[in-house]
Structure formats: structure tokens, C-alpha cells
């Protein structure tokens, strides 16, 4: 199988990796870079658990080949917030107990963050749309939506 050298930036750090033509970005992130917060829920692009941000856009990393991520900037959950200073979306999700089983949460946090990066004052409908590619079976989405709404308010306050 053909080998390729791929340079990509993940969570602010540059990497140069040799990958196969068929390697999925999902596996490269999980197995090569040990970013286990990226989850696989179906492998067919239906559930969105493997969502990462690639050059400012949400992608299902199970549907992106590693070679397609060449020269891209990738953000995974490991690049968002810290124990000491969680991202406002994370803080609000904690406040509302919006994480139940937690399997979709990395993707939900990234979807919420990516929305607010581009649209600091989203409507409720825009929030619903922003997370609609990620399935959650525990929460019914309500607490997630409320949390993103609250994070938006907090972030606008910070900016002002």
C-alpha cells in the first residue's frame, strides 16, 4: 500500500506522520497521536461521535482520510479547555449535568465551541443545527442546548 507523509497541526502542535492511503483520520488521531477523546460510534458518518474541527469546520473523522487532512489544523477535545480552566461550553455543560454517559460529549463540546467561534450570538435554532450532526441518546439534547446558550452569553460578556 502506498505510504504518504502527512503534515498536520493538531491542537496547536505540528506533526509529520507516515500514513497509508486508507488510514482514517480517526485512527491516526486515536492510535498514533493517542487522542482517545475522539470516539468511534458507528464508522459510517451517522453518529458524529468522532467529530473534530478541521480548519474551522466540523468533520466526521471516520469519513476523512488521513491524507485529506494534509496541512490542516485539527482541534480535538484534548485541545479545548483544561481542568483548571474549562472552556465556557464545558463549564456550562458541567453546570447543567449535560454529560450523562459522556460518549458524545467530546463531539458536542467541539460542535458548541465551533459554533461560538463563528457566531458569538447564535439563536436557539442555530444551536440546534450546530449539534445536529452529533447523536446523543441520553439527554434528549435539551441540557446541551441550554449549556451552549449560556456559554454564548458568558463569552459575549467576556468580550464586551
Amino acid at each position, binding site marked *: 500500500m502506498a505510504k504518504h507523509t502527512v503534515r498536520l497541526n493538531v491542537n496547536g502542535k505540528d506533526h509529520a506522520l507516515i500514513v497509508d492511503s486508507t488510514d482514517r483520520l480517526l485512527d491516526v488521531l486515536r492510535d498514533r497521536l493517542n487522542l482517545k477523546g475522539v470516539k468511534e460510534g458507528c464508522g459510517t458518518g451517522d453518529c458524529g461521535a468522532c467529530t473534530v474541527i478541521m480548519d474551522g469546520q466540523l468533520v466526521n473523522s471516520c469519513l476523512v482520510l488521513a491524507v485529506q487532512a494534509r496541512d490542516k489544523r485539527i482541534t480535538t*477535545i484534548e485541545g479545548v*479547555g483544561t481542568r483548571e480552566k474549562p472552556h465556557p461550553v464545558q463549564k456550562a455543560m458541567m453546570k447543567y449535568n449535560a*454529560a450523562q*454517559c*459522556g460518549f458524545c460529549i467530546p463531539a458536542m463540546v467541539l460542535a458548541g465551541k465551533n459554533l461560538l467561534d463563528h457566531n458569538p450570538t447564535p439563536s436557539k435554532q442555530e444551536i440546534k443545527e450546530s449539534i445536529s450532526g452529533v447523536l446523543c441518546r441520553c439527554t434528549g439534547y435539551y441540557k446541551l442546548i441550554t449549556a451552549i446558550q449560556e456559554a454564548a452569553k458568558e463569552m459575549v460578556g467576556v468580550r464586551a
Partner: protein
Amino acid sequence: MTKAELVQKLREADSFVVVGKSVQRLDALDKVLGVPLYTSDLVPKDALSVKVVRSTVAHALIKRIDTEPAKRMLGVSVVLTARDIPGLNEAFALLPDRPLLANGKVRCQGEAIAIVAAQDPQVAEDAADRVAVEYESLPSVFSPVEAMKPDSIRVHDTGNVAKYLKVRKGDVKEGFRQAEVIIENTYKTQFQDPVPMEPEVGMAWVERDGTVTCVGSMQTPYYVQTGVAKVLGVSPDKVRVIQATTGGAFGPKSDEMPVDTCALSALVAQKMGKPAILAYTRQESMIARTKRHPFVITLKTGAMNDGRLIASEALVVSDTGAYASLGPLVIIRACFHATGPYVIPHVKTDAYCMYTNNTMAGSFRGFGSPQVHFAAECQMDELAKKLDVDPLDLRLKNMLRPGTLTATSQIVDDACGLEECTKRAIEASDWYAKRAEFGRDQGVFRRGIGIALMYHGNSLGPEGNDYAYVHLLVKPDARVVLRTALTEYGTGAVSGLAQIAAETLGLPIDLFELDRPDTASCRETGPTVASRVIVIGGRAAQLAALKVREKILNVASELLQCDHSNLSIKNGIIHHPHHPRRTITFQNAVEECYKKNVSLNETGFYSAPKCEFENENSQGTTYLQYTYGAVVAEIQVDTELGIVNPLKITAAYDAGRAINPLSVEGQIEGGTIQALGYGLTEQLIHVDGIVANPTLGDYYIPTSLDIPEIQTIIVEYPGAVGPFGAKAMGEPPVDLPAAALANAIAHATGSRVFELPLTAERVLFAAKKGRP
């Protein structure tokens, strides 16, 4: 104060410090940071990947399994079949019906026949494809009603009835003789896949001393221990099972599925001396794992002209697929709840759990309750229509209230908030106004509003021994570790145990930590099912906390030179009520305990009283307490396309005591939406036993764009068993929404859909019939 008095005081306390407060879950920060490790995040580098060869047919003899082509493939470590199992080839939970690997015969699609292991998962998958299985097809039965006929194809030699039971109350013949109005209808429900976001996964390795360690996504580690030991032919103490962070469960991870993943991994690990992991693909999971039983329910209901219910006759038939799993228990709950939450003097219910050649059904949140509530609550609306009364008024007339009798002649105790739930739900939804307003809708888009009521027997009742162990360890730094084999898989219930212990100990919740459920460090504690963590586990947590409290206060009383019964702990401070200066911190007392070698490692054990009822006719106390609820659904139907747009759900539940209101809301919201899918879109379609839509692209669960407005209401009628009066709130929220939606659609279109899901096609045909 004696312990019993203290518990009583705690139950009655109306100003809790920790309980009843919307506190953050203990795992909240970890989860939003994405750091919890699920099983697939823990795979050692040298692990072998296991793939399963599964039956592609519904019913056949296996003439030959040719494993040679797979074995010859480069990179394949091992191929195993039933012959290679050192212990018992058994993987059933209740009835001795299911082998771990098929033995000469398959009875449904997806049955495991052989396993292949390789370092490279892709190689393992390719090799599994090359295992050739030669079948000799057998005639099949796919309908549970067909399976009841004496001349039906037999799925098992023992016959097709996996379980039969009945309820007999009063004299049903006499009841129908007196009845002035009688209606009879048949309702059908579908296979629903639970779709936890993490599919089934298990891993195993062999320790140097020969013991086997299993790590997996599961609800009940001790079931896995027993199951794996049986397959390996070793005693259970040679198998250690640890629950990894589990990405949703909803029932199937309680019974047989985690035994499959861990036992098959363990077979490979034992044979090859390397760690092995079996992770189901989504498709594999949707075919092979247990799902919600389809039911066929025929209800005949008799009433007086004034609306009083007088007689109910029900035939409840479930399709458990080729293997029983927990079907024989599911049918018990279905049978006992089949009339809905109403007073009916004469009841006759016959309930059958049937084998067919469909894929296996089993434990799933609600456990038979959503199916019978769908039927019972649609039936109430049909009766209201026949009597020409408001369906709400009919319910108010007949609903269970304190002092009335259930279908099993259990006396309803004072902890019955059904009427308040109903009143709060109709007030919040403005029922009467909307019922009139929506009824006047003309044209293509028509709105409807429907209601449904429920009761849900808490915990196991007749389904098993109901007990729990919870361990508490206070560390030298005064942090408290809570450990139990009751598992966390999303609900937050184990955090609720910490809240209960914190309340009992007078400590802030943030002093608590949760340990991983592990058979090496936690007592066997029964299954984590039936919403029993809070109700039963909560009592054990309370008892463990009382023991710790006693020891701490003993030591503190010496330091403060007073009788320990005078002391109390509040927010981590131990003080004497009449001597404000006689105060020490909890931390000081803990330090003193460590100095004096007073162990602060305590175990609480609680065992619920047995449910006393007569088996023949199922009369008596079937459950120790009940959760009650009322759901109002508002929808809009496109009468040209049949598409249903859910507008608003109002959901009121009697939670007894909401230990963590925020978590209870989370359960109501999540359960409502899982049930919205059950009502409107979800259906695992079987075509001659073969699953036609085993992907999340073809099997549609609700997304964030599909959810209606929701209003949750919690009322509290403290129950007799749960800690502080808490009732089960994990499962009940899935019982009603499908029924409320069906009733709302019938209101909008004037005609009923008798079968779930309420697809556009079915709604369209009904609408055309209703308003030509």
C-alpha cells in the same frame, strides 16, 4: 437516637443540605474534558482483535464450518468454534437456551458461530469473512402469534412459550355482563434498538497467576464474572471483572451481551496468552444485541355509561426472538401493568413470552412497560370516544388513588402522586383550551393534543432478589471514596449515592470520589437495572454512611467530652447543639480515627422486603412502591403527507424525592426523546428474520432538530422504600410519550393508528379514513 430513628428523621427532613439539590455530578469535569477511558481507549498495544462470524440466516442446521481458509491467512492468530470452549458453551441469562457459539444449529440472524483473532483488526475481519458456513435451511416462524399455534414450527425442542403468566382479579365474565359499553382492539409494537452511543465492547487478558481479567462496557460486573467463568471452566474467583466507563447501556448491557464480548475475548486471551478485545461494529450491535420486545396486545375493556371501568381482558404476547434473554421477566412486568394505572374490579390478563426466529429481544429501559402503556392508554382514548367524553375526564374518574386496588389487588398507598401529576400536566399544557382549539383546525395542517398516564413498579419486585452493597472509605485526608458494583453508565445515579451518603454524614458533596466497579473490591450486589441504584443502592449507601458516622462521632465525643448521641455533623463540622464551642472538624475527627486505628472502611447492605403475592392469579403486592406520571403531547399533522411534527411535551412525574432534581430532569428529557423515537420513527425492520436496517442511517433516532419543546414537572410523594422517599426515575420516562403522541394524532386526524411507530404512511392512511 437509634439508627432507625435517625433514618426516620432523615426521611422526614424537609430541609436537606445535599439531597434534593441540583448538584453537579462527580464525573462532570472529566466528561466534558473527554478524559474518561472507555474500553476501546484502553487496548494494550499487543492486543489481538477478535471478530465474530455470525449466522446470515434465520433458522438452519449447520452442516459444516470450514475455518481453514481463515486460518491460512497471514496474520491470523487463531480461529475458534464451539468445540474449542473449555468450559460450558452457555451464554443465557435465565432459560438454558443460548450457546455462546452455535452448536450445530442457528435459530436467528446474527448468532455467533466462530471467532477469529488477529493483531490487525482488518485482517481479523477479512479472515472472518472467509470462514465458510454451510447451512441446511429450516422452516421458520417470525410472528409471535403464529408461534402460539399448536402446529407452529418449533424454535426450541421445549416449545415456543418461554414464559406464561396471568392475572385474575374478580370475575371478568360477570364484569363484562354488567358492562354497558365494551370495546376491543389490538395494538402492535415494534423492535426498538436501544442505540447506546458506544456499541458493545469487552476485553480480557490472563494474569501471571492464571486468573483472567475482563474489562468492558457493562451494567453488571458480577453477571459477567459468572458468565465468563462458566465458559472458561474455572471458578468465578479466577475471573476479575472491571467496568470501564460505559457509553450508554439502556438494558442490553445488563444481561447477556457483555458476557458475550468478555467471554469471547477471554477464550482468545486464554488460548493465545495475549490480551484480546472484541468491539462490535454498529451494524453487528444492531443485529446481535438484545432490543425492545415487539408486542401484540389485544384489549377488551368494559365500562358503565357514566365512564366507570368495570372489566378488562387482555392478551399480551411478546416476541423474544430466538433466545429468551430476560424476556421471561419483561413479560411479568408487562402482565402486571397491562391495565394501565386504573381501578378495574374485574381483570383477566394472559401474558405469553414467545420464541420466534427473529433476532433476540431482552432487557431495555422500561422493561415491557412502554408496550403495555401504549396499548392501555390508546384504549382509554378509544373508550372515551365511544362514551363521547373527554379522555382526561375518563382518566380522572378511574385513576389509581390512595386506598384503591391495582390490577393485582395491591392497595395503593399514600405515596401516589398520579392525580397531582395529571393536574399539573393539564394545567401546564392548558389542556381544555387546546383540546377545543386544536379540534377546530381545518385544512392540511391539523393540531392535536393527547394525554397518557402511567404507573411503574419500582425496582425488581417479582423479578429477583433485591439487595445492594455500598462501600465507603474515608481516607486520611477526609475524602470519602464510594465504591459499589452498581455501575454508572450515564444516569448519574451513582453520584446520587454519594449525595445520599453526604447528606447522611453531613458532608459537602465535593469531598466524595467514585471508585471503579471491580469484582476484586466490591461485593456482589445484584444487577444495575430497574432504576434500582437510587431506590435500593441508596438505602445501602445510607447504611454505610450511618456506620461511618457512628465511628466518627464516637471518636469526636471523646475529644469533645460529651455523649456522642448529642453530636451532629453539618457541612463537615461536628458540633454539640448546646455548647457552640464544642466543635471539631470532620477532618480532625478522621485524623483522630486514624491515630487510634479506628477503621473508616464500612459497608452498607440493604435487602428489600419480599413482595408478598399469590402466584397462581398474581394477586398481592407486586412491587414495593410505584412511580407515577402523566404526559401531554401536542403535535401537528400534515394530513396530505402524514408527517407528524411534535410541538410540545409536558411531562409530570412523581419522583418520590428527587435526590438531584437536575439529574431527574435529565432522565425525563432523555427518556422522553428516546420514547419520541419509539413513537414516531424507530423500528428495526425484520424481513423474514433478517434485519433490513441495521445502521444509524437507516434506523432513525431523534437528532437535536427533531425535538419538541419540553416542560418537565417533578412532584414528590415520598415512597415507602427509597432513601428519603426517592422513587425510580431512570426508566419511567420512556413509558408514555408514544401513547400520548398516538392519542394526539388521533385527536388531530379523527382516526387511530394502532401500531408503533406512528409513521407517516400509517398516519396518512388513518387520516384519510378519519376525515375523508
